[in-house]
């Protein structure tokens, strides 16, 4: 899994690539850890190139969601394929997270 970071205005966009699974989620956790340490408060996770996410990946995302909340930040998600969106739906996470169809609408919402 690869993580590409870019700054759009005051929002940090994290574009994930590949599989977010039990093997790659520690790496993702490290990335999120550094984001928290840099005191970034607006994070957008782009799923455009994510082909699969498992429970460990979801746990990493929800951990980031709660940690950002604690420091007064917020996280949004965008560009999910139908497959990824289905996973969020069956876990009912779509009711907790802010999910947007495309990057522009997500950035507008911050």
């Amino acid at each position, binding site marked *: 899994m690869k993580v590409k970071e870019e700054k759009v205005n005051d929002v940090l966009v994290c574009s994930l690539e590949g599989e977010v699974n039990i093997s790659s989620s520690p790496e993702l956790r490290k990335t999120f850890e550094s984001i928290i340490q840099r005191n970034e408060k607006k994070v957008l996770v782009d799923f455009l190139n994510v082909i699969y996410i*498992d429970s460990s990946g979801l746990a990493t995302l929800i951990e980031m969601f709660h940690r950002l909340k604690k420091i007064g930040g917020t996280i949004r998600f965008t560009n999910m394929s139908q497959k990824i969106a289905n996973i969020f739906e069956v876990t009912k996470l779509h009711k907790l997270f802010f999910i947007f169809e495309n990057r522009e609408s997500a950035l507008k*919402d911050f």
Partner: protein
Amino acid sequence: MMDDIRPIEKEAHRLLEDNEYQKAAGLFYQVADAYIQNRQHQQAAFCLAQAASCWALKAGEKTFYNAATMYEKAAKQAQSAHDFEYASLLYKHAAVSYERDLEYLGFSECFYLSKECYRKSLKNSLFHPHKTKKEPGKRSLKNLIRKFISLCFLTFSWALWGYGERPQRTILFGCILIVGFAFVYTGGSLMMGEASSQPRLSEAMYFSVVTFTTLGYGDIVPLGLNKVFAVMEALSGLFIAPVFITGLSRKYLRF
């Protein structure tokens, strides 16, 4: 060992996509079990929630019992991971699934736990207030006040009638009020017959019960500040009696 479950979970997702719900649910359950053994409760909660969704999809118009029990297990795991917001959501889904299957005992328990988890998540978020762009500065304070009011309301509802699912609490609540007001009355004076005096606890208890139940025999009359307390107690009694009846009928008329 944890690496071994990666292909199993992937296979479960593939089966889910192919509408093989029962097989997928079995595999999700297996993966959840491995996570539980590894004390990764949050991950286990996700797997169990997915297994529950598989059962719900399989059920269609038939039984939702399997989905309900699985959602309940998932919620318990989320609770173990201290993710009360997610646990509340899962308990709500468990309650709805139980209700669809006419399992009202399960519904009652899950509804209660959903509210309780939501109260805990509110309590947690109050200690860590967060801002969003939609609610910066002043509106964040507004959000905080709104959350605080919700927490107070939920705590009152929890104590008064267990969110409508524990009507016996209303009796206890009423008893506490009666005894509490009785003690208050002993600090002031009451007119008993022709004489006014500081009442004994037994006399104050009698007066408290008569006032709470709004019987108002008139053989004992409050004096001074006790008048204010008597009015407060009578109003509480007026409010609590219908709450008890509502709670009782809400819970027992389902069966």
